[in-house]
């Protein structure tokens, strides 16, 4: 095995007095001192949120204003800390969204339990639940920390949709009933 012998030079007299190194250190700290600070003045300045940030989980509408959640409860079952509770509800036949399977009657996320893991977003077949940019979640009571359905839609807003899955399904079903295949 090749061995490299490193020659350890004895310290020179000047080095043993520490003084050159102390001066070098003082120069470094002084340069640091006159540099602008790195601090973000938080409540006035807000951090830039990187793409793919996992903030507070929210429910979203599609651009037509339809709530996307169909209360399949996959997120409820996958949620590791069991923070999500969904009460499924029917959609009446006379409603414009009657072609959609179901919708949640109540949807609650307990933010004291949520661990921001993002599994709910990953598992959702309807792309209805998203962990968006909100990073600050505070409240004075435990009840305040539970986001109900209205609050979840308010936080989520509307996100663009590429599929319009239920509209396609509806027009396909209509085409089939008029005799075409599919």
């Amino acid at each position, binding site marked *: 095995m090749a061995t490299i012998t490193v020659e350890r030079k004895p310290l020179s007299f000047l080095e043993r007095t520490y003084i050159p190194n102390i001066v070098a250190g003082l120069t470094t*700290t002084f340069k640091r001192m006159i540099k602008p*600070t*790195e601090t973000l003045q938080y409540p006035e300045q807000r951090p830039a949120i990187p793409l793919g940030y996992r903030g507070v989980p929210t429910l979203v509408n599609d651009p037509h204003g339809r709530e996307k959640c169909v209360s399949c409860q996959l997120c409820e079952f996958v949620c590791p800390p069991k923070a999500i509770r969904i009460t499924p509800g029917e959609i009446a036949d006379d409603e414009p969204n009657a072609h959609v399977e179901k919708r949640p009657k109540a949807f609650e996320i307990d933010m004291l339990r949520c661990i921001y893991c993002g599994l709910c977003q990953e598992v959702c077949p309807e792309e209805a639940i998203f962990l968006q940019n909100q990073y600050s979640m505070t409240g004075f009571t435990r009840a305040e920390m539970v986001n109900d359905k209205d609050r979840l839609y308010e936080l989520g807003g509307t996100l663009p949709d590429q599929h319009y899955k239920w509209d396609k399904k509806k027009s396909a079903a209509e085409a089939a009933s008029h005799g075409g295949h599919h």
Partner: protein
Amino acid sequence: MFDFYFDLPLWFRLVLQGTIVILVLFPLAAACSMAERKISAWIQGRPGPNRTIPPFLAWIPGINIIRNLGLFQLAADGGKFTFKEDPVPGNVNKFYFILAPILAMIPALSTISFVPFGAYFKTLADGTRELTPIILANTDVGLLAVFAVSSLGVYALILAGWASNSKYPFLGGVRASAQLISYELSMTLSILPIFLWINAPGGEGTLSLFNVVQTQSQVGFLGGMWYIFLMPVSALVFLVALFAETNRQPFDMPESESDLVGGFHTEYGAFKWSLFFVAEYAHMIVGSGIFCLLFLGGWNPLPWVSLADLVNFGAGFLPIIAAPLVMGLLAITLFLLKVGFFIFFFMWVRWTLPRFRYDQVMNLGWKKLLPLSIANLIFYAVAIAVKDLYFPNL
């Protein structure tokens, strides 16, 4: 203009002067704690305390400058230390436990009496002008008195460590005594060359600090030279010993936050704790003041330019500069600027150097600084003798 003042009884004037000096020194020492926080913050790339402001003052335009400097935070801290509960632990020796912070304050505030902080021209009865120091007690023992009183400060630390009746404070107290005794020797030896230099044999000897500044304000190359250029080794040894004597990093053995919790003040809280710290900062201020007087020409603006030169030059344009009050304030400002730089230097070094281990502190004190200061003393004793014998007119 101020004749009525000099008609007052002497004791009353002395009490008044002493009170005023303490009323300046105490808040100045307290303000050092904010300076410490701000400078440490800046060196670490943070802004430091900059949020506190009483809401009823927030409307004043430009007040944010004071707010950003953390001065309201300082007031809040002071208020907190004054009013918070001050518990005395059950197993301490109560009398000495309470005595210790008081003992820490007394030497810290009394050493200032021997430190001149400015000078002015006093017109004598025959019309000539004499440079007079602004000082509480212009005694001939001067520096000796400062050393004698300031070394009493260590008793407060030992007492605090012992009275706390607990392991860490005790270790801190023991370390404090060992460290301060070791470094006092080299500190005293390092300044002897100055007094060998200024006290010519046969003449009247003095240890007065005012006299030290006067000898740095003479005419000529050697006369106007600050002693830091004439005796750099003395200045270095004195400065290092000063760091040790004021328990500053890298010599913070009595406190040893990293291995002794808080050292001698572990059991202290609230106002008593803050007294220890005001005392430490007061020591720093007085110590930096003495360094400036001994090695940096006191209130002289530049080497080879004395305060008298500056005032005589300035009075050519603006005669009021030579007035005692203006000249005194000018001298005090120049002196405080130098002291302020050293306070900054203390804090700057704190965030630059890692702290020494206990054995390294002892090694440096006994094996490096003490021989160095003795060699320095012998060198200057010989050099001054040679100069006096062969080059008396240099």
